[in-house]
């Protein structure tokens, strides 16, 4: 079990304090896949590095299976780190080493004998599906294959924990899918606790058991994936939940709409969970006296419950009427974004 207790981390650059992590307390259970989601700059990268002490917290404790690893001596910490694998967005492989040599690297550090090393490397290559590529150099492989090397390398010393730092962010959707499948399998078969940080909601939706949402250094919401998706409370969580599954697509729609309707106002309404079943728009429209036209709508029932996104166009109406319209919608629990 990983326990983070009241972690604070402040970076000082050019005399300015940046609060990367503010009073984060978090328990991550053995064998679970725990997602930490947040926009860039939310502090999630720092938080995950505090778990293996690549960054030292300014205050608070990191307790892994009962050991306060912030208090370990350098040599003890290095031993402990061998039990915590880590994979990275940009893979961070050694270009000068072959696939096999890359995977053998952590074993060399752990002073594993040559024969045993080779045996373990062969096992790992099989595990991550890179048979036949052992003698290749990373530069000869695709992004997905590179991440597989990263995973094999991270698993070399039979860790209990695997930290994933935006592990799929540099990969295309299909490759992301296959890497997530691999991580899921590893979690199931080897029982390794996986902590993954990401800004991709699809990723947590697909494999995480529990998630924490991070914003401005704080954990603003925490719970099972089902809870978070069905009933997002915090503004940031709502934005994530309603933006799921369509990265890039949203931008395209919004751009098209702006071109089609150069005048007036376009508003994006998102509904999740229970409120998408209520006739909210109808209720609200009865209270305002300007016409509202729906220009794009998409309501569906995903595996995490009903969810809808709608774009409406307002061509006339005064500023105050329009403000009232937005307020009425927000009161009903709709997430309103003005484009």
């Amino acid at each position: 079990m990983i326990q983070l207790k009241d972690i604070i981390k402040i970076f000082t650059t050019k005399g300015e304090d940046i609060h990367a992590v503010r009073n984060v307390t978090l328990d991550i259970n053995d064998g679970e896949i725990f997602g930490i989601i947040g926009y860039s700059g939310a502090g999630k990268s720092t938080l995950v590095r505090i778990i293996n002490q690549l960054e030292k917290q300014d205050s608070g404790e990191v307790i892994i299976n009962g050991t306060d690893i912030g208090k370990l001596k350098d040599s003890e910490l290095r031993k402990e780190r061998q039990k915590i694998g880590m994979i990275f967005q940009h893979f961070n492989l050694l270009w000068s080493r072959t696939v096999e040599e890359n995977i053998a690297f952590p074993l060399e550090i752990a002073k594993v004998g040559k024969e045993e090393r080779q045996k373990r490397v062969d096992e790992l290559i099989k595990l991550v599906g890179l048979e036949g590529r052992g003698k290749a150099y990373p530069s000869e492989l695709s992004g997905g294959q590179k991440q597989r090397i990263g995973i094999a390398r991270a698993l070399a010393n039979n860790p209990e924990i695997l930290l994933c730092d935006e592990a799929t962010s540099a990969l295309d959707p299909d490759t992301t899918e296959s890497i997530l499948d691999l991580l899921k399998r590893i979690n199931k078969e080897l029982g390794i606790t996986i902590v993954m940080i990401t800004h991709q909601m699809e990723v947590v939706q697909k494999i995480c058991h529990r998630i924490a949402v991070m914003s401005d250094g704080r954990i603003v919401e925490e719970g099972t994936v089902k809870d978070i998706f069905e009933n997002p409370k915090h503004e940031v969580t709502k934005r994530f939940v309603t933006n799921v599954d369509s990265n890039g697509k949203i931008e395209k729609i919004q751009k098209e709409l702006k071109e089609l309707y150069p005048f007036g106002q376009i508003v994006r309404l998102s509904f999740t969970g229970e409120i998408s079943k209520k006739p909210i728009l109808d209720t609200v429209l009865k209270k305002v006296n300007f016409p509202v036209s729906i220009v794009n709508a998409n309501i569906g029932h995903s595996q995490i419950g009903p969810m809808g996104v709608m774009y409406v166009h307002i061509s006339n109406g005064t500023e105050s009427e329009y403000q009232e319209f937005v307020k009425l919608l927000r009161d009903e629990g709709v997430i309103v974004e003005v484009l």
Partner: protein
Amino acid sequence: MSWLTNINWEQIYEALVETIYMTGVSMIFIVVFGLLIGILLYCTQTGGLYENKYISKVVDVTVNVLRAIPFIIMVFLIIPFTKFLCGTMLGATAAIPSLVFTASPFFARLCVIAFNEVDKGTIEASEAMGASKFEIITKVLLPEALPAIVSGISVTAVTLVGYTAMSGAIGAGGLGNVAYLYGFSRRNGTILYMATAMVVIIVFILQGIGDYLVSKIDKR
């Protein structure tokens, strides 16, 4: 082909050997010292493995001062040291200390550039695996920077050949000496051109070997 008789081939050969000797032996010292200084600078710089503002600053300034001194002045400056070390200030061996003094800081800079080009993420990943600082230097930093270091060695070696010619003109022997003493002073154009051609060929060969090695070891 009468102009060929103007050349004392034995003399040219001897000079060639001297030039290669000066370049080669100096290069060994330069690579060792340069790498050590380079590692020291890299590790003590801000955010480095052994961050230390004071050591970093002192070494940095020393390197800059040594690099600022023109080679020909360096030769005269360290004559006492050269005499102490070699017993003389003449001859090929006596040229080596000043060559090493001038080129080591230059090569050290090239090493720092090479090290800084090693992906920080790779070093972070090694730390995450539990590698010690020594392991990071020997197993990550040096192998990953090797192509750039080798390319730095060939650049330094080429510069060094130029320096040996300069020290040759003031008594160290080698092709520079032949070109100056027999070619220039005695107005023997053939010897001057021949010595020049030899230097150019050495430089081409050095650069060629360097480029070949880099292409062999660079797996990026």
